[in-house]
């Protein structure tokens, strides 16, 4: 899977958790999940669990703490996929 494909897949994972007033087109690599995309911390946990299933990886508490933006998530995914 290429970087671009991973980014597309990540956006698809995030999309159902976006509040009604935020569209999927709003997502950029720089988007902060909580501040920009208005996702709450409980839904962020569900995004992480979906990411784990989709990419067959396991995230640790430190990964969760450092996952502020979409780019952070991509970096963590890339470091973990074989």
């Amino acid at each position: 899977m290429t970087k671009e494909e991973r980014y597309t897949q990540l956006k698809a994972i995030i999309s159902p958790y976006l509040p009604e007033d935020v569209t999927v087109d709003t997502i950029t690599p720089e988007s902060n999940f909580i501040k920009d995309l208005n996702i709450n911390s409980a839904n962020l946990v569900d995004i992480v669990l979906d990411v784990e299933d989709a990419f067959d990886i396991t995230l640790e508490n430190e990964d969760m703490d450092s996952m502020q933006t979409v780019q952070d998530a991509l970096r963590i995914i890339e470091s973990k996929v074989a």
Partner: protein
Amino acid sequence: MKNIDDILKKLPYSDPFLFVDTLTNVSDEGVEGSFVFKESLPFYKGHFKEHPVTPGVILTECCAQIGLVCLGIYLLGRDKIVETSNIQIAMSSMQMEFRKAVYPNEKVRVISEKSYFRFSKLKCKVTMYNSQNEVVCKGTISGMFNVKENA
């Protein structure tokens, strides 16, 4: 049982908003407990006028206190020192379906099964039964649990 007394003592609620009498079972996978809705509870006066029925939000609260909060305190207590003063709890989402009414002085039993507890979020499947073992309500409840360090 030591575990159970310890959990009940740490619940951050008191009368008239404590909806846990006792726990009969607690494990890593789930919890079971009960509560009697005494007719003296204040909301019966207004829900409904001259026709007291336990409000659905209160049934949900009872499910959350037994199924989510008691279980969360137990799970957190396995590797951290948890005190009422240093625990932060917030219900983050719930979805409930109601089948039976609960009248004053009825005893209910709540069974909760852990779906997951990861990154501070606990999600449970909960079911409430009345004393005839009929399902009163069932659904899923999630909450965030944080323990403040050095509180």
